[in-house]
């Protein structure tokens, strides 16, 4: 097949011009938000919206990630959490939208910014919080910290904090699933910066040639640390590179949880049925700095304000109300429930014991 024959443009979101916020459909305006979301639901092939219960669950996940991280940020500023933090705030629609399509036995690989993926895949908030506090009850027994959270019992491998590093590993897990005759799929989350790593290229290439059941989900938040997308890519979209591997490339509004849900649903189903990998690019924005020490002076307040208007959570909140999926009271209850869970997680983490010093020597090797 000639490369010119590899044309997946028909599965692409027509709003190719994102991330330009000026193309967004008037957020803050309920009608606009609603129209935008319903448009995106037409933009993917798989089409079906989740039922009310699942929509509420997705909303819960998004609010959970947001509040978990806001509280974690406060704790960090109060000096109660060591380490640096890479906050996921602003990108919640992606973890929530993708993971809503996954089974517990499907695999997720994440990055140095993994709290959202871990929560969405079902890692217990208490265990993540305890890990951030460096406590023995942490999901990785406080050996990994913020950048490595995971729980294999729910299919979340320890997050891999070397940019691009998870691309070939995710392919390997997908290869294992295929060799074992299962239909489980693997999702690799990564940022735009990862797509300029050699490891990413090698991973996507083998995933394509071996038709592995893996979905590469790019969270293009426009900045690799402080360096903007436009300085590091000659192509307009990360997804444009999919054609080079002979795999479908899909672009979605990463702040539109239903668009993410539908695009990933199609890709996941395709992978599950032996159709091979997909590269999904979610256009989004990291509302906070790259890490805690980032003053964000490389981007404008105007740009930040424009993206704040497109915040995925108020958008979805409004959509749920407009569509009559939930009442305001029900959504308040979700928020209350989340607050309670986060409170409990903090209490659990703070009251948990520190690791024993002897633990330093544990788990270097499997005995």
């Amino acid at each position: 097949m000639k490369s010119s024959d590899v044309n997946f443009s028909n599965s692409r979101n027509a709003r190719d011009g994102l991330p330009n916020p000026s193309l967004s459909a008037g957020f803050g305006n309920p009608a606009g938000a609603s129209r935008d979301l319903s448009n995106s639901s037409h933009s993917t092939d798989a089409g079906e919206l989740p039922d009310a219960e699942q929509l509420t669950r997705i909303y819960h996940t998004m609010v959970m990630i947001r509040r978990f991280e806001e509280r974690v940020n406060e704790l960090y500023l109060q000096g109660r959490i060591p380490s640096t933090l890479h906050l996921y705030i602003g990108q919640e629609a992606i973890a929530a939208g993708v993971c809503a399509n996954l089974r517990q036995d499907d695999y997720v690989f994440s990055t140095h910014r993994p709290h959202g993926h871990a929560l969405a895949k079902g890692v217990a908030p208490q265990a993540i919080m305890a890990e951030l506090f460096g406590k023995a009850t942490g999901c990785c027994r406080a050996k990994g910290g913020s950048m490595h959270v995971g729980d294999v019992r729910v299919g979340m491998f320890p997050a891999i904090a070397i940019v691009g590093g998870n691309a070939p590993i995710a392919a390997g897990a997908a290869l294992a699933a295929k060799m074992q005759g299962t239909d489980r799929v693997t999702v690799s989350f990564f940022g735009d910066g990862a797509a300029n790593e050699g490891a990413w290229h090698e991973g996507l290439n083998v995933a394509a040639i071996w038709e592995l059941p893996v979905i590469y989900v790019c969270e293009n938040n426009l900045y690799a640390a402080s360096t903007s997308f436009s300085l590091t890519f000659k192509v307009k979209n990360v997804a444009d590179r999919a054609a080079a591997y002979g795999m479908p490339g899909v672009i979605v509004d990463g702040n539109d949880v239903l668009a993410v849900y539908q695009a990933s649903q199609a890709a996941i189903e395709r992978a599950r049925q032996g159709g091979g990998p997909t590269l999904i690019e979610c256009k989004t924005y990291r509302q906070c700095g790259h890490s805690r020490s980032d003053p964000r002076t490389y981007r404008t307040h105007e740009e930040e304000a424009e993206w704040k208007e497109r915040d995925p959570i108020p958008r979805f909140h409004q959509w749920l109300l407009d569509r009559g999926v939930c009442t305001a009271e029900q959504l308040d209850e979700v928020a209350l429930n989340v607050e309670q869970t986060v409170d409990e997680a903090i209490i659990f983490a703070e009251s948990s014991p520190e690791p024993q010093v002897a633990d330093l020597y544990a788990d270097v090797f499997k005995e």
Partner: protein
Amino acid sequence: MAKMTIAEALRQALREEMRRDERVFCIGEDIGIEGGFGGAFTVTLGLSEEFGHDRILDTPISEIAIAGVAIGAAMAGMRPIADVQYGDFLFCMMDQLANQAAKMRYMSGGQVAVPLVMRAPVGATARGPQHAQSLEAFFTHIPGLKVVAPATAYDAKGLLKSAVRDDNPVIVFEHKLLYGSKGPRSERGALSPIGEVPEEEYLVPIGEGIVRREGKDVTIVAKLLTVYRALAAAEVLARQGIEVEVIDPRTLVPLDKELILASVRKTGRLVIVEEDNLTGGWAAEIAAIVADEAFMWLDAPIKRVSAPDVPPPFAPVLEREYVPDEEKIVAAVLSLF
């Protein structure tokens, strides 16, 4: 007992382990291509006929992918045996080995195991600086990796089988001049030791060294090809009345430290031989261990016979100067008396 080369012994180990456990598969460049070489040194030759191309999996020239895919597959329940054509290419996949494979278990708090094997040929063989290095020290330095270095056919088979069954990442270093590869892939100047390998199932445990020659006057610790150089030097020295004990640790991580210390306590003298560069090398680590734990038994300084701190050269005359040989070992030993 069957007599075979190291390449044949390794191939037999792969065959037996793949028959025993369907989770075991091989992954690498040019390992199963019809009409190909069976890997750079013929170790996987013919295996795809029995196991098919799904289990003798040929990759693009993508070392990061070879390592990364092996790691991911291992984490998800398979037992991959990866093959890098030349040890030098391990540097291409260094993040995957050093940051991923070695640390995955630790940083997950013991949730994950990475039972993979990475086979890597080392040694200077007239190929110039990028296909000749001995890289063992880089890997012994990284906590979380096991490292083995078999020098005989018996050990090659037994250690590879143990490596496949180990639940941790194991790097298997093989010396190009010891394979005994045949046909167009044979090596000029190869030692190609033919060894006896039992017909019945056996394993060589990871972490156990062996005394290759007993002696009371001086201990030589050597690995891979330098075991044979040390044994040749011991013959020469024996004629001069010096009885050399030659120790082959076989496994570099975890190291059979007690075997070395016991020998030094007996002989009071230590020479370490390796083909790696001198500075910060494996020999330096052995010297440090002995200085630390057996200093009072030493009757002479510890000597290292290593490659000098230059890249491996191409010209045979320069390469001969670069690699440790019998003469250099004899001179080092004589300097202790």
